[in-house]
């Protein structure tokens, strides 16, 4: 079995023109954690994650590679302050938040075990793209795999 047999070919996607605020609204309405971002030709350009919101709300030093900040209990914070930060980032383009490296794309030919290994390491949403063209084909999440496992029982 390969990813081709498991992927969800019709997930919600957004385009490069989408704003941070718009993308957040879709995540909230659909109760999902990530949105594939495609260009006008349907080429996969990256993933917008709910994780990007956490990164925005945290101090920069807390998410800085190598800074090793593991505890912020000494820093108070109010919901109002966090809301202001979220609203201020609303008009920014999703392009600013794309981090393709965090979730490498997989291909229809990728084996199911390799896909599970990647989900184990990334615990999220894996974009499925054509190997050569990076044309977007769908996504693979833990739910697609769980559903298939459940079907067989």
């Amino acid at each position, binding site marked *: 079995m390969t990813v081709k047999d498991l992927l969800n070919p019709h997930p919600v996607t957004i385009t490069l023109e989408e704003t941070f605020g718009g993308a957040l609204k879709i995540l909230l309405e659909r109760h999902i954690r990530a949105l594939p971002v495609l260009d006008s030709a349907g080429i996969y350009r990256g993933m917008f994650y709910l994780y990007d919101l956490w990164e925005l709300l945290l*101090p*920069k*030093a807390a998410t*800085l590679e190598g*800074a*090793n900040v593991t*505890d912020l*209990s*000494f*820093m108070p914070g109010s919901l109002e302050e966090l809301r202001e930060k979220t609203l201020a980032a609303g008009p920014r383009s999703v392009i600013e938040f794309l981090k393709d490296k965090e979730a490498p794309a997989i291909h229809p030919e990728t084996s199911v075990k390799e896909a599970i290994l990647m989900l184990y390491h990334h615990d999220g949403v894996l974009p499925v793209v054509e190997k050569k063209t990076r044309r977007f084909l769908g996504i693979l999440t833990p739910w697609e795999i769980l559903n298939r496992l459940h079907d067989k029982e």
Partner: protein
Amino acid sequence: MHSESTAAQVIFGWSAAWVASAIFVAVYVMVVTEKLNRAIVALLGAGLMILGGVLTQEAAIRGIDFNTIGLLLGMMVIVGITGKCGVFQFVAIWSAKKVNAHPMGVLVMLSIVTAVISAFLDNVTTVLLIVPVTLLITEELKVKPYPFLISEVVFSNIGGTATLIGDPPNIMIGSAVGLTFNDFVINLTPAILVVMAATLVPVYLLWRKELVTTDAAREKVMRFNDREAITDARLLKQAVGVLACVISAFVFARFLHLEPATIAMFGAAALLLLDNFQRDAEHQSKNVHHAFAEVEWVTLIFFLGLFILVHGLETSGVIARMAHALLAATGGDRNVTVIAILWGSAFLSAFIDNIPFVATMIPLIKSMAPTFGGAHALLPLWWALSLGACLGGNGTLIGASANLVVAGMAERAGQPIRFMAYLKSCFLLMVLSVAVCHVYLWLRYL
């Protein structure tokens, strides 16, 4: 002097001095150009010293100063474990609140805290602990972190100069010459206190206009709960206790007849024991693995290789020739030699790694003892070497490891520190600090 090299067979019957010099120069060039990781370069060079027949393996191992390696390793383990309890974050936040979060006050306090911590811990570790808290504070204050980061770099290099254990060059000098923790405190700390005070003046003048914030932003920092920064109170007590014992042992080392490596390694073992006491085997394994993973093995391996390389130079007679050349240049005058070493070390250390430089200078200065009337007469030269090599690191962005570590973090935080911008402000700060040391050495020893 040549007994060890003659035991080995130099390839093709070439001169041991030429082979050793060629290998050493090649290693130096590779280290300076940073084309290859410095640990790889030093190990390759050390291997070539043996394969080239300059040293036998036994001679190479005799050349390694295990006192320096042990001291560095022990302190790295202690610091790695101590850092987990949040004590450094606590001190940084506490000091920022003591000045009511006024940006200039915070900058001065964090600079002093960095210098004091650097006097006892490795400079890179110090900035790795202080810079993230600094970024948290400056973000809340809505001021540019740049002046804070630059100042912390400068003060980490200054503070590291103050004691035997603050900076690798001091560890190497102390170990090679038999100078104690107290010798460094008595001879270098007073100079460093003056350098710190003198450096704060231009730091204030350079950045006072940029460091302005609002009362609301200051209030945010004042709401930080410094006590909450302590993440493991049990570990804090253990670490502070062990650190206090280790530093006390350094102070009384001569009386206790203990070498620094023994003190640091035993301290590391004691802290590991306390941190793992009554924990199950799996937890212990994880903890110990983590503690040793924090050790900068690249630095230690670099030291190993370097000691072998310098030993190759020494046994082949190159160091003695270099010493003669330096003495000829200074006319055999001790005072001129002291000042030449101070300024020469500072300018060279601003551009090249001060560790290989000091490793080369140690046997070179030692060989001057007969000229200047014995080992005791060399003391001012050792202080000049330490002050020049450690403070020189402030001259450029590539002058010391701490500078590069902070530059890397600043870049990732979107506040890049450029080479020329750093040079413009910090080279003069370095010259000022060396000038202060020049006066200090002149008044006290010459």
